[in-house]
């Protein structure tokens, strides 16, 4: 088992202009405290994060998109794996932190604590670059490959239940949307918001 926070610390040091979409809970708060970049979208929902990343990756095929998922979120909506495998966006990386429980509600076990294997589910849906890691060295190796190579890639990270004592996010969805979209406009040289007529 590895700590999610250690993985996120390692990840943030390796990023340049990659876009990051997060699930909710500890993952979002920890990532927000470590990163806080304009390239971050804290989606704060379960079962929607990888699909949002898929749309983003297809819209911007020249930009790497990283999705920070959780086991609870992926198990809520595994249908996204087949859509992802069907479109195969080369620029999408799904990182699923699997702590085998619903940590935010006290640690009730998810199905990955007993029977479910998220990487195997992804592979069965047609995502050949899906693997499970449980050490920081293996996580780093997968991330280095994911940032350099074509995907889509799914990295399931077996973590413990520890949450870093970081402040909770103080940005809401509306502010986050404008910050993120304005960054895309500037960095990609495109218009997202229309001028008034």
């Amino acid at each position: 088992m590895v700590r999610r926070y250690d993985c996120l610390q390692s990840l943030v040091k390796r990023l340049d202009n990659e876009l990051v979409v997060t699930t909710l809970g500890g993952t979002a708060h920890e990532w927000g405290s470590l990163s806080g970049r304009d390239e971050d979208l804290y989606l704060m929902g379960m079962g929607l994060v990888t699909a949002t990343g898929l749309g983003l990756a297809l819209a911007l095929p020249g930009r790497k998109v990283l999705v920070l998922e959780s086991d609870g979120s992926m198990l809520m909506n595994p249908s996204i794996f087949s859509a992802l495998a069907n479109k195969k966006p080369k620029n999408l990386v799904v990182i699923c932190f699997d702590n085998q429980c619903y940590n935010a509600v006290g640690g009730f076990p998810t199905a990955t604590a007993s029977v479910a294997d998220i990487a195997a589910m992804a592979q069965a849906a047609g995502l050949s670059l899906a693997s499970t890691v449980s050490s920081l060295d293996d996580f780093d190796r997968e991330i280095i490959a994911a940032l350099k190579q074509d995907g889509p890639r799914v990295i399931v990270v077996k973590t413990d239940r520890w949450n870093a004592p970081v402040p909770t996010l103080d940005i809401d969805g509306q502010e986050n949307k404008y910050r993120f979209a304005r960054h895309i406009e500037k960095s990609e040289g495109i218009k997202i918001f229309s001028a008034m007529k």
Partner: protein
Amino acid sequence: MMSKEVARQVLAALKSAGIDFVAFLPDTALIELDRMVADDPDLISVPVANEGDGIAACGGAWLGGKRPAMIMENAGLFLATYALMRSSISFGFPVLLVMSYRGEFKEARWFSVPNGWASEPLLKALRIPYAVVRRRAEIAAAIENVQSSLSSQQYPAGILFGGETIW
């Protein structure tokens, strides 16, 4: 069901209104439109197995500079309600919902009848503006009007296709 001729009319109006990204889950009424979308080289098309996936993908596509639409049966609206609330509505992603209006008069499937009761009340509860299009002559103007309001409202909006457009 929507004929090829009407589906061509809808697709042309969607493209004319700037739609360039379409997620869809095939349904009986709109299958001709779904086929045309899937084959259209000018569109990024994303078949999904769950309408919520499509709604979330449309939100991501909008953030990437696209003008997205989700094509689905109105039954998909019920399945996608959580995705709409947590993504399009909470963040304010302008996503066009293109839906068949199953459950109105002429409905032959008993299990689709409740779709007719619940669609408009649900859209109202979600504060999603929508148009109901039952005549072919109204298609182009309705799509243009709804799509043109998305940018200023920064919120999803919908069109329900019923009447002679699907029956």
